[in-house]
């Protein structure tokens, strides 16, 4: 019993105390609107920006038929394409780049080594000490050693025609060198 009375009291009590809050809110809610509010709002609505109107074709030129629309579309395409073509024709193409033709190094084409030789990078090996005697010999001037010349075979002389341009004979180098040796003798 006491619990129910307590519950009922707790439910009523907030309403009693919150009643003053609701009274205040109701007082504010009942406040009249200021005079001339409607007129001001209506004036504001009239001065508000309106929707833009779409321009209409004149009656005589109104494209009612489908062929007119097609013609208009074709005209638009023609103008756009013509403009593009005009721009394309006016703009000069840039000069072609100057190409330096490099001579082919090899007959087969491609890159050449240009005579360069590859030297493999190897580790330095142990240094070999040269004998002292050789060094002394190297310091001294070299002695003239007699040259041993083998006796040459006697070859019968041949008459060889000379070429017009170089004046050199078509004889082998060996045979051409032989008379010089014999002269030295």
């Amino acid at each position: 019993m006491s619990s129910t009375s307590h519950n009922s009291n707790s439910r009523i009590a907030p309403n009693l105390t919150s009643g003053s809050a609701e009274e205040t809110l109701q007082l504010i809610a009942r406040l009249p609107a200021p005079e001339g509010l409607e007129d001001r709002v209506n004036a504001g609505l009239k001065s508000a920006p309106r929707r833009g109107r779409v321009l209409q074709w004149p009656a005589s030129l109104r494209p009612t038929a489908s062929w007119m629309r097609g013609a208009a579309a074709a005209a638009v395409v023609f103008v756009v394409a013509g403009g593009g073509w005009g721009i394309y024709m006016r703009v000069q193409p840039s000069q072609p780049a100057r190409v330096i033709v490099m001579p082919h190094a090899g007959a087969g084409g491609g890159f050449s080594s240009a005579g360069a030789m590859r030297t493999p990078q190897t580790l330095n090996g142990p240094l070999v000490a040269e004998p002292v005697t050789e060094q002394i010999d190297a310091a001294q001037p070299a002695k003239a050693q007699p040259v041993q010349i083998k006796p040459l075979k006697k070859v019968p002389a041949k008459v060889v025609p000379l070429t017009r341009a170089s004046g050199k004979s078509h004889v082998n180098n060996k045979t051409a060198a032989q008379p010089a040796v014999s002269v030295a003798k």
Partner: protein
Amino acid sequence: MSTSQAIYAGWMEIPNSTVNDLARTHAEEVAVAALVTQYGGALYRVAYSVLRNPSDAEDAVQEAFLRVLRHRDTLDEVRDQRVWLIRIVWNIVLDRKRRSKTRPETDDVAELARVLPSSGLSAEQIASAAQHHAHVLACVEKLPAKEREVLQLSAFEELSSVEISQVLGITESSVRSRLFRARNLIADLLNHARTLK
């Protein structure tokens, strides 16, 4: 060539669709003006109960009707125009209040004494009543947003719980439970303030 001559010449003909559009626009503007006359005051009071500033409340009403004017094509589809308009202005004032974190003007006791009705009361009574109202409003501001909104809307006698639920976009049972919670909370706040005194 004058405008009328051009129209008669045929190259500046006003089409029937344009005439219809003009007539329709005029009819819609008349309908909106009627809404302003009918519900302007109610919308102002709703706006004022939240913003508690006359000029801000009027601006909110103006903005609400501008929105209506923008969506006047859908005016015929609205079932309950009053609830629809209150919902629009409610959203506007909540948005404005969220943006400006300023203190409402009527929390000032002198301003409350000036605004609230005080017929047949002495100056002392008016002052004490204004002080009391200011204190109550300060307690209302301390409530959670959901409970405060329901309490503020319930103060309007013309709004039923169903209509409050439509304005807030919640169920009617939620409105009742929130209102009960709001009353409990405000009572606690007021009691707490009284014991502190």
